[in-house]
């Protein structure tokens, strides 16, 4: 039973991943990628990593939908209504992908995988929390700052009208001058 689910999902993940490059529509490509991630998530769930599996589903849905927003904003012909091809540089791409495949496959076959020592933890989610609050604290803090930097950087880069447009050159206005009012204040 588990094996069947695993194989179905593994094949499904690869097939959906391949579909990303076969479809014309940006929307379909995005959701094919999402399907691929969900298949992978089910396989992760089979490894008894409940939190990680569910997290992959949760995060990937939100992120793929956001990706669809950006893809459709920038790519022409987003619905694939006009015939077009998403393939570029076929030969180079083929060489690179074949090389990567051979490398990874060789890695799987040649690496001496370690044997399992000890039993898996009863609650992997709790282990994860302990690691985050203990030994991996630094990682988390650095990531926090990186996320903060991301926020500031995107706002700086993307915001058309900044605070000097809204509050005046001396930031003298009490209420900002916006094309349309928001939900808090005016």
């Amino acid at each position, binding site marked *: *039973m588990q094996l069947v*689910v695993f194989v179905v999902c593994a094949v499904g993940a690869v097939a959906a991943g391949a579909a990303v490059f076969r479809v014309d529509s940006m929307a379909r490509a995005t959701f094919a990628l999402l399907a691929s991630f969900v298949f992978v998530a089910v396989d992760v*769930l*089979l490894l008894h990593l409940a*939190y990680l599996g569910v*997290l992959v589903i949760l*995060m990937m849905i*939100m*992120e793929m939908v*956001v990706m669809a*927003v*950006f893809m*459709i*904003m*920038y*790519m*022409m012909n*987003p*619905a694939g*209504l006009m015939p077009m091809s998403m393939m570029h540089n076929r030969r180079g791409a083929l060489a690179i992908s074949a090389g990567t495949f051979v490398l990874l496959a060789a890695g799987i076959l040649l690496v001496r995988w370690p044997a399992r020592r000890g039993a898996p933890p009863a*609650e992997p*989610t*709790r282990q*994860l*929390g*302990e690691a*985050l*609050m*203990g030994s991996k*604290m630094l990682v*988390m*803090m650095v*990531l*926090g*700052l990186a*996320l*903060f930097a*991301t*926020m*500031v950087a*995107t*706002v*700086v880069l*993307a*915001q058309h*009208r*900044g*605070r000097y*447009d*809204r509050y005046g050159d001396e930031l003298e206005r009490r209420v*900002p001058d*916006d*094309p*349309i*009012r*928001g939900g808090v204040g005016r």
Partner: protein
Amino acid sequence: MTAVLLVAGVASLAVLALYGVGRLVRVAAQGAPRAPFLSGNPPVEHALSRYHVRWYTVTMLFLAFDMEMVFMYPWTLVVATVGASAVIEMFAFLAVLFAGVLYAWREGALRWV
């Protein structure tokens, strides 16, 4: 896990069954595609075009803040055992992120149109 697969399967079958019932009792088969509704006017262009959203900065803010949920859920499990340091660390993390939100708000990223 088995329950999930079972319910997902049965729910999908139920959806299909509903379509089947609809097929049996409908008055007519699905006809040729119609033009989309435009108050009785023919369409000039396909609605599926590059859709410009004006809240794209909000999506980036959201994704950044959302990443933090990856840590937040496991964190809830260990607050009691790790103690005050866990709470201080997590809320410092959240405070940094919220400072980013306040900055974005001041720059007008939460307003659009």
